[in-house]
């Protein structure tokens, strides 16, 4: 079980990172060429984020375009199965595009438009973030430039087709491992050469300040809604909030609104095959100090999660901070366990989760078993699972009958 939050730790949280840092984590470890752009982004964003006009437009598009608020669904059968705490699912899988990605992509695209940028650059691994970015760009009349490793393009061909149908330019990156990190480097190169007219749209709460702040601001709607919905429905806060952690965007959006609520425990679930918080050490990667999977030389290690969006060697710096403080607990769940969790949800609730979210489902159910019937667990169901159908299905075929 998670150790309860140390009371003192809560005091350390501030809404805005101090000097770009969450405790010792975060910061701006980037080449000098990017510093003025980041500084300007920070200044612009800090003034825009509180503008009513901006917030109203964002809210309207979230509601009418994305489908917010998403339901907080009481999973009756899953609860009966676990036999412990009541389990609620935050249905981010119902959003436009099929995952929480659009929360962030739309927010940042709106920001890009406010900043009068005409092009939006992004790097994507499985294509999920790229697709969300393409959608938001269409909506706001921006040109999306999607950088994607050639190997990833092959693996996720249908997502790429969708992005192209949406008018995005997809740049195949044939360097290196031809995967997300190579795409990231290529996208950064493109940004550096177009700082004036391009906006670089990071897909999760990673990267240099102010990106982790920006992404958390756009994802916190998840936790804010959970809180409001649960208070309205049950007149109380949850006992435990669970979210999958890849780079950590949906999880930080889920956790942040509860950080000051000392009694609400927070559980972040990593893929065991890419568990930077539970198996990594402190390092600097892609612009921020955080937990990182690295060897003794400080070289970044390859990861091997079946869940494309969890397959990342580091994690957002705010999670590193929460871990260090003991404010959130982080555990790792294997791909096999996640598949089991996903199948369980399909068979009990008729919902096939993304394999990423299935990590949280698995862990959340395990924890719910050990909690009392009058307790409440909320799990963020961050995406839908059609994209992972093949993995689920092949595995089911292998193991004969399902769970």
């Amino acid at each position, binding site marked *: 079980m998670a150790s309860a939050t140390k009371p003192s730790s809560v005091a350390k949280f501030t809404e805005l990172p101090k000097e770009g840092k969450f405790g010792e984590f975060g910061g*701006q470890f980037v080449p000098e*060429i990017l510093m003025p752009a980041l500084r300007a982004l920070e200044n612009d964003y800090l003034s825009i984020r509180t503008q009513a006009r901006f917030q109203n437009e964002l809210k309207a598009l979230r509601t009418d375009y994305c489908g917010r608020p998403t339901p907080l669904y009481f999973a009756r059968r899953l609860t009966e199965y676990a036999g412990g705490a009541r389990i609620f699912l935050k249905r981010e899988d119902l959003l436009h595009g099929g995952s929480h990605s659009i929360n962030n992509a739309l927010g940042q695209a709106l920001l890009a438009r406010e900043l009068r940028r005409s092009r939006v650059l992004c790097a994507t691994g499985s294509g999920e973030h790229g697709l969300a970015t393409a959608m938001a760009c269409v909506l706001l009349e921006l040109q999306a430039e999607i950088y994607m490793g050639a190997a990833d393009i092959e693996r996720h061909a249908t997502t790429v087709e969708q992005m192209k149908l949406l008018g995005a330019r997809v740049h195949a990156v044939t360097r*290196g491992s031809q995967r997300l990190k190579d795409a990231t*480097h290529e996208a950064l*190169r493109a940004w550096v050469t177009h700082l004036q007219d391009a906006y670089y749209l990071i897909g999760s709460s990673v990267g240099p300040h102010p990106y982790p702040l920006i992404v958390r601001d756009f994802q916190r709607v998840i936790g804010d809604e959970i809180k409001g919905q649960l208070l309205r429905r049950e007149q109380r806060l949850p006992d435990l909030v669970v979210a999958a952690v890849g780079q950590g965007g949906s999880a930080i959006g889920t956790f942040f609104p509860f950080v000051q609520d000392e009694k609400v425990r927070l559980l972040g679930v990593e893929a065991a095959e890419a568990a930077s918080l539970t198996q990594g050490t402190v390092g600097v990667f892609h*612009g921020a100090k955080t937990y990182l999977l690295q060897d003794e*030389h400080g070289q970044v290690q390859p990861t091997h999660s079946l869940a494309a969006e969890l397959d990342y060697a580091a994690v957002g710096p705010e999670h590193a901070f929460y871990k260090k403080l003991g404010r959130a607990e982080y555990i790792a769940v294997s791909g096999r366990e996640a598949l089991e969790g996903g199948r369980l949800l399909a068979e009990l609730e008729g919902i096939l989760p993304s394999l990423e979210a299935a990590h949280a489902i698995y862990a959340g159910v395990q924890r719910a078993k050990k909690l009392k019937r009058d307790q409440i667990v909320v799990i963020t169901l961050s995406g839908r699972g059609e994209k992972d159908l093949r993995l689920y299905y092949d595995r089911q075929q292998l193991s004969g009958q399902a769970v």
Partner: protein
Amino acid sequence: MIVSNYLAKRFEELQRRQEAALVAFLMAGDPDLPRTLEYARAVEGGGADVLGLGVPFSDPIAESPTLEEAAHRALRHGVHLQDVLQIVRELRKSSTIPILLLSYYNPILRLGEEAFARRCSEANVDGVLIPDLPIEEATSWVNQARKYGLARIFSATPETGDERVKQICEFSSGFLYLVSRYGATGAREALAETALPLIERVRPLLPSDLKLVVGFGISTRPQIESVVRAGADGVMVTSALVARIAEGISPEALSAYVRELKEATRCPSPAPS
């Protein structure tokens, strides 16, 4: 403030000779350690004034594809920081050329800033350039570098405003590395339009003990000549060398190429500082 002896001396010498410095960078371990040693000697033989060695890193951001690929090749041979220091020690046996290391921050952080600084100093490294360590994150590093007598090379770019240039200079020693063009590093035939006005703008902001070295995209004599004429104390050549090594150039040919570039640094600078 201690500045590494070899580097400061070399700049003094060059100033006397009315030459600009040619800083030649290689990726250590590409294609392998023995050949890095050969190429380094060839570069020195060709007349380079300063030798730079890149420490391979798995995830260099905003780096030229040429350098990124070179780093990956080196990593495939298991070349890490200690091997690079070994090369430095090897070179030092027979040479007093100023040697700089270029390393991303994470391998340094992993070892510990102080341990890294100490080892550099022990190996007679003259200075260090950490491309992903802007001044905001550099306070403790600067303290270590000071303590161990390493030159602290920081960059400025066309994006960097005057005020910030001045701040960067306060963190720097040895020289300010001026990135002459938008975009990531990589050899280009023509010098970016931004280079000359940039030099003109930055030059007056530098304190007198800080040299100005211009780089990114330099590969030809005319480029060097115009940069030197615009007031640079030196030029840095990186991708042009790494690319030639990737193509399998012989050490002799590399030496000849460096000699040709070095020629261009001897054109008279209009306003020696």
